[in-house]
């Protein structure tokens, strides 16, 4: 049973990271990026291209991937955000879905459908205690999530630029009026949000292998987590992610492994019926 907890939390951490990336972008520009899962896939493959194809050390691969994903984020912003500013939400949804389809199929053309492995940045035998096995990589996943959360908290609340980002998230127009460099904060949000997904990809590839269609399911779970926690709510996303990881794992073990994917949706629908704004509530006010 303890093993289920460990595995569930590790899985949940990945979901949480995807959700965090989603929310960073959403908080700033009110766009839900349905291609977030494909960005995760892209991060995994860039990492593999560096570490496996070009045989660079894993740490270097990570660094290059993060920089590359930041650039991808900016390009994404230019291609998706600017043309669709002010358009109805669901056209944006469909545009990001279409972007996801483009990315996934380009990846299939470039890298082919065979799954590929990526070495983990940490090596070593797993920890064993009380009949539970925790691999070094799982510990690394927890550590990465913790570090990112701390960095994000520090950045958003203690640095000047971070506070500006929060202001932009609260009210874009007023922020612009008072002279906040809004475009820069948006760019940083896109870049950072995309890097988070890239990191999730680098964390996932060593245990789940990477193949071009890996993004669909993981992205979807990230959205579900965002909905459960409440859009805009960063701590909510983390708690929601870990929660979902546990539910899926325990559900698959004790209820039925056939409906594993359904648990996420069932929990989401149940939460929404009771709390239409998510467990912890949305930050932004409703747009009339």
């Amino acid at each position, binding site marked *: 049973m303890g093993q289920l907890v460990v595995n569930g939390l590790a899985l949940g951490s990945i979901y949480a990271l995807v959700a965090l990336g989603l929310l960073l972008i959403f908080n700033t520009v009110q766009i*839900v990026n349905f291609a977030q899962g494909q960005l995760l896939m892209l991060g995994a493959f860039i990492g593999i291209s560096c570490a496996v194809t070009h045989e660079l050390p894993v740490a270097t691969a990570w660094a290059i991937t993060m920089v590359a994903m930041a650039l991808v984020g900016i390009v994404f912003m230019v291609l998706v955000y600017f*043309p*669709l500013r002010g*358009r109805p*939400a*669901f*056209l944006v*949804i*469909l*545009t990001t*879905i*279409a*972007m*996801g*389809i*483009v990315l*996934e*199929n*380009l990846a*299939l*053309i470039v890298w082919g459908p065979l799954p590929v492995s990526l070495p983990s940045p940490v090596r070593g035998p797993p920890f064993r205690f009380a009949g539970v096995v925790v691999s070094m990589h799982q510990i690394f996943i927890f550590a990465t999530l913790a570090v990112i959360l701390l960095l994000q908290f520090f950045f958003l609340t203690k640095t000047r630029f971070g506070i500006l980002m929060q202001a932009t998230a609260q009210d874009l127009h007023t922020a612009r009026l008072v002279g906040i460099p809004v475009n820069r904060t948006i760019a940083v949000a896109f870049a950072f949000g995309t890097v988070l997904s890239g990191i999730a990809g680098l964390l996932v590839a060593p245990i789940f292998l990477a193949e071009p269609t890996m993004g669909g399911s993981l992205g*979807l779970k990230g*959205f*579900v987590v965002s*909905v459960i926690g409440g*859009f805009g709510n960063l701590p909510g996303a983390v708690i929601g992610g870990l929660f979902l990881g546990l539910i899926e794992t325990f559900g698959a073990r004790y209820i039925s492994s*056939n*409906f594993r*994917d*359904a648990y*996420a*949706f*069932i929990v*989401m*629908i149940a939460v*929404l*019926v009771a709390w*239409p704004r*998510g467990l912890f509530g949305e930050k932004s006010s*409703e747009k*009339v």
Partner: protein
Amino acid sequence: MKSWFMLALSAAVTLAVPVVVHDGYIIQLLNIAILNAIVVLGLNFVTGWAGQINFGQAAFYGLGAYTTAIATKAGLPWIAAPFLSVIVVVVASLMLGLPTMRLRTYYLAMTTIGFGEIVRLMIVHWEPVTGGTSGLRAIPGVSVFGFGPQGQMQHYYLLIATLGLAILIASRIRHSVLGRAMIATRDSEIAAEQSGVDTTRTKLLAFMIGAVYAGLAGCLYASSIRFISPDSFSGTQAILLMTMLIVGGMGSIAGCVVGAVALTILPEALRFLGQWYLVLYGLGVIAVIVMAPGGLASLASLAQLRRANAG
């Protein structure tokens, strides 16, 4: 005057198609396109007019198809199938609609996706009844008093007639109180409420009518293609239906038909592109959304406007 002529012309062309085109494969493709058009017309009620995102339309399509397949294979007379399909999808749409009436945009989108996934998983794992991932084959065809369409061409005419009926009903609803209520809800729910529109009831009705369209199309799909499997009603199909609506022109009846036919035929015509087809499809959808969000239908009316202004 001109629009009547265009209407008559398109009707004539539509009826003449199978006579001119003897290719069974193309007619089969057109039949699928017509069925898709009916589903998209249903989606239009919910998304185009009432403004509610709905990624669950493929699930209703599937529910209609499976209900018909299971019922007719169990020996029930065919005429019972459409009724059963309607009952099943109405119940399902209520199950989806009632709890979600308070939800907005992204939450609604996710919930409808979830609904679609749950339906699909149920179909896949209820193997003794639904045939699981193998699907159901040798489904009995349409048969009323022992008569039924034989061959692709007769099915084509039956489906065209059904599409015509679907368009007619949609048009009547569009100009009715309910239709105006839907559009008012889409434009601004708060303002609509203030004007006395019961937006909850309107949204629910839109969902139900949309589901009924899809369910009946599913019934005909099962009875004419005679083979169904879960992958024809998956989340990917739901997205495809949405793009048909957008590319054709959200809110426009003609747009629904154009979008459905275009995006059913295009993947087949462009098969030689292999993997690149999906890349181009994605880019195409983005291009339409960015440059012509009203879809192809809006381009057509734009052209009409230009001509009117020029002349």
